[in-house]
Structures are given as C-alpha cells and as structure tokens.
C-alpha cells in the first residue's frame, strides 16, 4: 500500500509552476521598488541592475503572468464537462464552492476545537478551493491595476490621472495580501503543519501517497474505490533522485518566500509610505 494516487495532470502542474516562477519574480521586483528607500530594497533591485531594471522585469513578468492567466481561463472553460453542464459544476470533482464546503468548514472548525468529528473531505477541501479562487480574484485586481500602472502617461489619456493614486494603493495592498498569504498560510497548510511537515511534493509529483489521502481526503478515496476507478489512478511514487530535486527546488522557493516575508516585516517601519 505504498502506491500514490494521481491528483494533478502535467498541465495543471505546469500552470502551478509557471505561477510560482512569475509570482516570485514579481514579488522580488515589486518589493525592491516598494522598499527602494531601504538598503534591503536596494540590494533586491541591484539584482536587476537597479530600480529601473527591476521595474522593467516587473512589467514584463506581469504581462507574462496575465497571458498565462488568460490561457488558464481558456483551459478552465475547456475543462468543464459541458455534456453534464450545469450539474458538472456541482460535482464532487468540481472546484466550484458548494454548500458542502460551508458545512466542511464548520465541521473542520469543530474538530479543531475538539467539539466534533472532522469532515470527510472529498477531492478538494474548502481551503484548497479558497487558495485556487484567491488567485483568480487576486489576479483580476492586480492585473487590472497593474495594466493601468504599466504606462501612466498612456493610461491617463483614457481616464483621469488621479485614478492611478487609487490603482497604486489597490495594487500594493492586494500584492502584499497575496505575498503574506502565500508565505504564511499557504506554506503552513501545505508544508509546515504537523501532518505535512516538512514538505509536500504533490504539486511537483502530481500524486500523493494513498495513506496520506485516506486521512486528508477519505471521501474521495472511498468514492474512487466504490466506482472502481482507484486502480486506474494508482501510480508509483517518484524515484528518489526526483524527490530530492522536488525537495530542493521546493525549499529554495519556500526559503525565498520566507526571506521576503521576514525582511519585508523587519524593514516596514523604515518606509515613509504610511497607510
């Protein structure tokens, strides 16, 4: 029983990896500019040849991320099971929030507080759905404001220039929210909490150990077994060298996130920018 169960397709893993790379580049270049008054910000910017270079990389990376998001929207539309539509949106494999997720949230909270038995998650838990859709609304907010700020002179031909005051703050707060959420909550839930520590490679490997899934997604595994689909989804775990690679790359990225979080917090009082 040491098999893995397939959980993500190569396309989905590629989307996630592309998101990691662009998100991290945008974080480093964005924080470099936000913190350019501080020595830390200048060090970050110097990696790109100064603030002008950092901003240029930020702009280009932002466009790449938006293009990727556009492709993902098309992919999402393509992924919908149109024959069963609209029922397919409410299937147990769907990422759409359902009444069941609300119940799961309160059951899970009850379990945390020791009041009830925990929920039996199906394919996606409520926090997995939340993290997924948070990228959608987050990208729409930073994407629209980011396009407005891409070329302020051009933008102000189409709308009053003072909208850029608003756009810059909205862009900044949403970006800080996204970074803080990823570098604390997302890392914690997926990698640091006792049941997952020290590292979960699911998004790199595409599959997860069946024993772990029986604990975290019991209703899904049970459903696969009754439908007789479990055996088709079984795959062997990745060979050790690959797993070492996943761990190395994963921890390099986690380390970068924590570095940005810690130094960002440590330097925040040095900023003249105040809410």
């Amino acid at each position, binding site marked *: 029983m040491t098999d893995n169960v397939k959980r993500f397709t190569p396309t989905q893993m590629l989307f996630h990896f592309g998101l990691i790379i662009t998100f991290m580049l945008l974080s480093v270049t964005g924080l470099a*500019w936000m913190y*350019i*008054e501080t020595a830390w910000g200048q060090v970050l910017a110097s990696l790109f040849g100064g*603030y002008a270079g950092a901003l240029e990389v930020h702009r280009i990376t932002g*466009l790449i991320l938006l293009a990727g998001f556009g492709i993902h929207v098309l992919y999402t539309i393509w992924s919908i099971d149109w024959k069963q539509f609209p029922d397919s949106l409410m299937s147990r494999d769907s990422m759409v929030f359902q009444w069941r997720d609300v119940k799961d949230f309160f059951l899970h*909270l009850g*379990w*945390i*507080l*020791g009041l009830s*038995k*925990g*929920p*039996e998650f199906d394919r996606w838990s409520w926090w997995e759905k939340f993290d997924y859709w948070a990228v959608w609304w987050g990208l729409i907010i930073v994407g*629209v404001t980011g*396009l*407005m700020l*891409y*070329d*302020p*002179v*051009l*933008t*102000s*031909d*189409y*709308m*009053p*220039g*003072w*909208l*850029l*005051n*608003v756009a810059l*703050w*909205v862009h900044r*707060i*949403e970006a*800080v*929210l996204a970074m*803080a*959420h990823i570098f*604390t*909550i997302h890392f*914690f*839930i997926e990698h*640091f*909490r*006792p*049941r997952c520590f020290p590292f979960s490679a699911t998004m790199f490997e595409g599959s997860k150990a069946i024993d772990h899934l*029986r*604990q*975290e997604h*019991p209703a899904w595994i049970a459903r696969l077994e009754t439908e007789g689909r479990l055996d088709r989804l079984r795959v062997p775990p990745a060979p050790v060298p690959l797993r070492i690679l996943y761990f190395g790359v994963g921890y390099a990225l986690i380390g970068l996130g924590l570095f940005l979080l810690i130094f960002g917090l440590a330097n925040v009082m040095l900023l*003249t*920018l*105040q*809410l």
Partner: protein
Amino acid sequence: MQSKHLIRRVLAGVLSCLLLHGPATSVAANPNAYEAASSGYFRDQDTLPGAYIQYRGSSEGGGAWWGIGPGSGSVKRSSFSADAHLGVAGYGIRSCVSCHQAQRYSLHSSRGNVTCIQCHRGQPIAGIHHYYSALNPIRKHAYVCAKCHEGASPSFATYVIHEPSPLSLATAQEFSLFYYAVWLMVILAGGVFAIFIPYVSLWALRELIGLLSGRKYSHD
C-alpha cells in the same frame, strides 16, 4: 524598441476596453469629421469628442466623476498669491518641510529623489493656484510633469503627488474614491488574516495533539 511600441499599442487597446471615459467614440461618429482630424500638433485622442473635458475648469474636481476624485478639500488663500510665503517670519533660513510637514514624504521624494523646488520652482514660490504658477493646472502637465514624464497630459497631471493619508476620515471628503477603495482593500486583507491566522494556529495545535496521542487519522 519595436516590441515596446507594440506593447504600448496592445495596452492602448486593452485600456480602451477598460475604458471609463475618453476616446471611446470613434472619429466616424463625429458629425464634423474635418474638425476631428488631427492637425499633427495634437495627439489623435486629443481631437476626439469629449477630450476637452481634460481642459475644463481647474481639472482637479471630479466633474464628470460625481465628485469622487480629489480636489474637494480646503484651499489655502496663499495658494493664489504670486509669492505664497510673503511675510512668513524667518522664511529665508527655514527648510520647506519645517512648515509643510504633511508634504514631507511623497513617492517622488522618497523614491525619485525629487526635491521641492524641482516642481515648485525658485523664489519667490508662487501659490499653486496663482495664474502664472508653473503648477497651475492649466500648464502643470507641460511645465512640471513633462520634465520627466514625456507626453504628460492635463489628465496625467491630476495624479495627486502629496497623497492624503488614505485611511484618515478627512480623506473621505477630499478624495472619496481613494478613501473607500483603500479601506475596502484593507478590510479584505485584514479579514483574510483575521480568519486564517487564529484558524491555522489552532489547527497546528490540534494536529500536534493528535499526532502525540498516536491517532492514526487526523480527523478522528
């Protein structure tokens, strides 16, 4: 260079879609096509119907924007004088920010190292509303902004350099969209963390207790 030009063209297209006001109307829709054609001294978008909105009034008020923009705050009488500091005691030996505390920081000074007089000009410093001031909205874009921002328009010049504190109640009057948009984002971000931080902290404790007591399934 070519690709940068292309990106600008694409962005102009995208912005037209996001368009709130401005050159949405096509030239063909103008009954006087002759008047609408660019003379070459103006950019195409300046000759489109509605473009004059940028030049109307002080260009600070919300006008077509239901007053949600900046410019509804109080206006100092000295901002209309040719020498805004006439009669200020000890003026010659003081620094600008010793009086103008609220204007001490802006992104222009903290990030761009722009100094006060680069925009407010030399002595005597005219009030920003004085008719001949370089900062008067009728010429600010050309005389001040365009020194660095090539192609700056009157609309561009309505960007508020000395931003009010976005969360302070006074800003709700001065620049209401700024106030409400930033508050909305703060509540969104604050709400996410107010829920998740205590949630995951307790979650970690619960899992740790479960592991230490040797339960096989995390949700028993």
